[in-house]
């Protein structure tokens, strides 16, 4: 489920101008949306700053190229968010990242305390970062971004059942890391 659009009216004008080649309008769109887009990509990239920044950059370049085809049937923010997620998932698919594998028990980080202060949140983020890329994508898209399994299955080219199974195992892993009994 894409997040609510930001400054939709301004976005419409700027998106139209940017589609006509106005780089300043595109820069305004970038400024308004970069943190939200980068946040989503940062989570999908397993909290890896460098990769998230590369993906963010690629997403905005791709958006510039595709803007002339944007029909304003959805909010610009929604369109951009979806495009950015696709950029991240395309990279995931291109890397043929570990489709079914899971983290070895021995690789689990030490148990933490009961969440949820800032430190524990950081611990949770670290644990998400340790998930295999596809399992992490399923968990982030479903539990954090609010996507449905059908959407995830479509985007990641996997069956709905596989998506559910990946989510279940990812949650188990995280609960274990966080010191909970599943």
């Amino acid at each position, binding site marked *: 489920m894409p997040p609510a659009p930001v400054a939709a009216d301004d976005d419409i004008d700027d998106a139209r101008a940017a589609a006509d080649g106005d780089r300043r309008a595109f820069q305004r769109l970038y400024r308004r949306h970069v*943190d939200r887009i980068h*946040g989503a990509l940062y989570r999908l990239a397993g909290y890896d700053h460098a990769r*998230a*920044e590369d993906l963010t950059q690629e997403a905005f370049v791709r958006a510039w190229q595709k803007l002339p085809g944007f029909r304003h049937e959805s909010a610009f923010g929604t369109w951009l968010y979806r495009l950015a997620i696709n950029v991240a998932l395309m990279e995931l698919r291109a890397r043929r990242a570990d489709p079914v594998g899971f983290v070895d028990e021995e690789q689990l980080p030490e148990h933490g305390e009961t969440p949820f202060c800032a430190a524990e949140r950081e611990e949770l983020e670290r644990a998400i970062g340790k998930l295999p890329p596809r399992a992490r994508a399923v968990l982030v898209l479903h539990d954090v*971004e*609010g996507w449905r399994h059908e959407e995830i299955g479509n985007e990641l080219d996997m069956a709905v059942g596989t998506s559910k199974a990946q989510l279940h195992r990812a949650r188990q892993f995280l609960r274990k890391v966080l010191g909970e009994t599943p």
Partner: protein
Amino acid sequence: MNEFEWRQQMRSLRQPVAPRRDLWGAIDAALEARDDDAAAAPAARHASRQPWLLAAALAGAFLLAGSIGLRLHRDAGTVTGNAPALTNAPAPWNPSDPRLSGAAIELDAARLELQQAIQQSPHSPALQRLLARTERQQTQLRQLVHEAG
């Protein structure tokens, strides 16, 4: 932690995160580079396609003119060898000869096309070279015809 608390906790991760550095400079540079590529591509395609088309047309004309010229040259040698008394005779141009007029027309058309192309792309060395070569071929053809009598 129950399911509801879990979901709440996970959703709370959904926060905007600013990149550690401003990415706009890199994005702007990438857009600039792509725009330049996009602008250069059609011009490059046009420039590269035009000489190839011209070269293909000219190659045919050169081959035709060359073969005719060679034959005329041989004929001239034969005539010269057999009848030296005729070497100083005037060499009238015979426009009715279809081989000669065909080659001359091809070369003339090629020259005109090249001149038009040069008007559009005045700084193209390839076009200049092709034009010079075509004009040389025309001169050679005239000389050969003249020699063949």
